[in-house]
């Protein structure tokens, strides 16, 4: 079953690249939903390969992740896209081609980092730590190189997903922390960022954060 876990992690890595490569916001959201679904399956697959998490916690983590990362947040973000009437990422500060290259580079760095920081106990699969680092770093790349408020939310989600993958190494010992992470994801994702984006699109008629830069010294 370990192969399936690796397959899921590969799917996560591919969706990272896809999010970086596409300029269409809808495709971004779809890719992050697929990534969310892969993350929801990950604890289950790890469990079947003998990574014993308590059944109750397993159910909470899987169901919670599926509901929030794969369904609720993507629906909310695509609604925001519809209402704000933006389709594409305009004019990213790093061009799409170079950001794909950068994402590939970050992937390489992640593999290198996983050889420097070795888990004290062997990880459930070899790919877990590098993919977690890669997702985290890709999130930062998206956050820095894009200008739309919606892409910023997706970048933030990628960072959260990276942290979540790391959390899997601890799901056995402190499942409570992983669950709290999911819960807070829900609050941030929906109640605040969703609402804030709505306000921004109403006030400014668009959600390009370049125009959200009047406050400075």
């Amino acid at each position, binding site marked *: 079953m370990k192969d399936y876990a690796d397959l899921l992690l590969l799917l996560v890595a591919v969706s990272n690249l896809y999010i970086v490569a596409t300029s269409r916001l809808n495709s971004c959201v779809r890719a992050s939903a697929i990534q969310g679904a892969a993350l929801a399956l990950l604890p289950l697959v790890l469990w079947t390969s003998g990574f014993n998490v308590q059944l109750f916690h397993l159910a909470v983590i899987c169901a919670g992740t599926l509901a929030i990362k794969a369904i609720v947040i993507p629906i909310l973000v695509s609604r925001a896209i519809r209402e704000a009437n933006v389709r594409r990422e305009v004019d990213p500060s790093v061009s799409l081609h170079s950001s794909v290259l950068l994402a590939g580079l970050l992937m390489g760095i992640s593999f290198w980092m996983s050889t420097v920081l070795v888990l004290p106990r062997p990880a459930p699969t070899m790919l877990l730590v590098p993919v977690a680092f890669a997702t985290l770093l890709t999130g930062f790349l998206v956050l820095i190189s894009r200008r739309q408020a919606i892409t910023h939310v997706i970048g933030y989600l990628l960072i959260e997903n990276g942290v979540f993958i790391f959390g899997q190494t*601890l799901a*056995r*010992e402190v499942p409570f922390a992983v669950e709290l992470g999911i819960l807070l994801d829900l609050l*941030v994702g929906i109640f605040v960022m969703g609402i804030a984006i709505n306000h921004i699109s109403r006030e400014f008629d668009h959600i390009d954060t370049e125009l959200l*830069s*009047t406050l400075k*010294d």
Partner: protein
Amino acid sequence: MVFAVLVAFPALLGLVALYTRNVRVALTLLLVGAGMHLLATGWLWTIPGGLELSWMFKLDVLGLLFLTLTSILFLAASLYSIPYLMHGTHGEQAAPHRFIPCLLWFLSCMSLVATTQHLALMWAAVEGTTLASAPLVYFYRRKSALEAAWKYLLLCSVGIALALLGTFFLGIAATASSQTHAGLSLSSLMSVAPTMAKPWLKAAFVLALVGYGTKMGLAPMHTWLPDTHSQAPSPVSALLSGALLNCAFLAILRFYQICIASGDAAFARTLLITMGIISIAVACAFMVRQRDYKRLFAYSSIENMGIMAVGVGLGGMAVYGAMFHAVSHSVCKAGLFFVAGNVLREFGTTRVSEVRGLTQRLPVSGVLLTILMLAIGGTPPFGPFWSEFIIFQTAIGSHPWLGIVFVTLLAIAFLGMGGVLLPMLQGSSSSPIQNRKESTLSVVTPLAMACGVLALGVYLPPVLSDLLHRAAGLLGG
């Protein structure tokens, strides 16, 4: 029971206030929550050994110190908010019915940060403070406030995500030591700290310092802070500056405690000193010739957070100085933001160049501004002078060059601040005098803060100094 009053009760009152349309009723709820909170905190002072209740709540002197600061500032900010909410402000569209519930939830989350020692729960509480205070920043429904709230939300959420990663790393570091895992409570992590995997522990501290440091306003992750503080209503700015930044600092200190327990704190101390000095320097650069007085106070908060980080990083007596500075800075900065609120209401602008003749138009606020400015700048006999002096003394003793850089930067900050604020106080105003009387509550609260900061400098009660010493003792001081 007492923890229920501190954490659950404000949250519950907030929920009730959410469905109250009457501002007076909601204000009563706010004051009841603040008063009860202060009473409960006062009662906790009478228990010498700290208090523990299940795995969730555990209070030590460090927590008690920051809880007390939060409690006192919250009551002051609540009192100061009364005229704000009763009479409205400068004609901008505001949302008072969301204000009070969010304030109460904010209090609840900050109390949880101070009273828990479970690192995952503490992380959730810090995130909760962001969620509860973002609507407070967007109190005035204008574009610039929305921009500030968005930056605040996004930057702090990213910071908090890194802090969660740091918490996970700490858990991973602990898996090296034993077969049965220690969990994420502070005491058990400290007991296994000597056998932790060092690279993971170090990475955890770096992530916590960057993550919670974003929330604390350490440069270079401070960029949200001046925007947020300048756009939020003044009582909220006071709470953000005086209470919230301290809570984020407390979260970093918890990680620092584990580093000390691991016997390898030198690395953490160097990082704290470096980040602290960078913060002070960046703040100084922006304070000189600052054009917006609320931003000026925000940068001053960054400077003071830097001072506290340097103090803890230096170790020895400086840790005591840092704890003392946390107290005196909170009181002083809250007072400054209250006065800034009075100035803003009178002049209707936060631009320094448009405020002239403050001592004529608002005599009491003018005097208070002068006193508080001298206090925060570190002139004797006020509290911040002593705390900064203790840190400086330790610095000069162990790293002379550091002491010289430190004191030079403080001098620049003081002169910068004076250079901006003094023209505001003098001269005569060109705009017509509106002759509004300063309302009692809006003057009494900053006056109380000014008296407090003077009292801290003149006579430090043995109870408080004992608490500060014991808190410093937990941090290797």
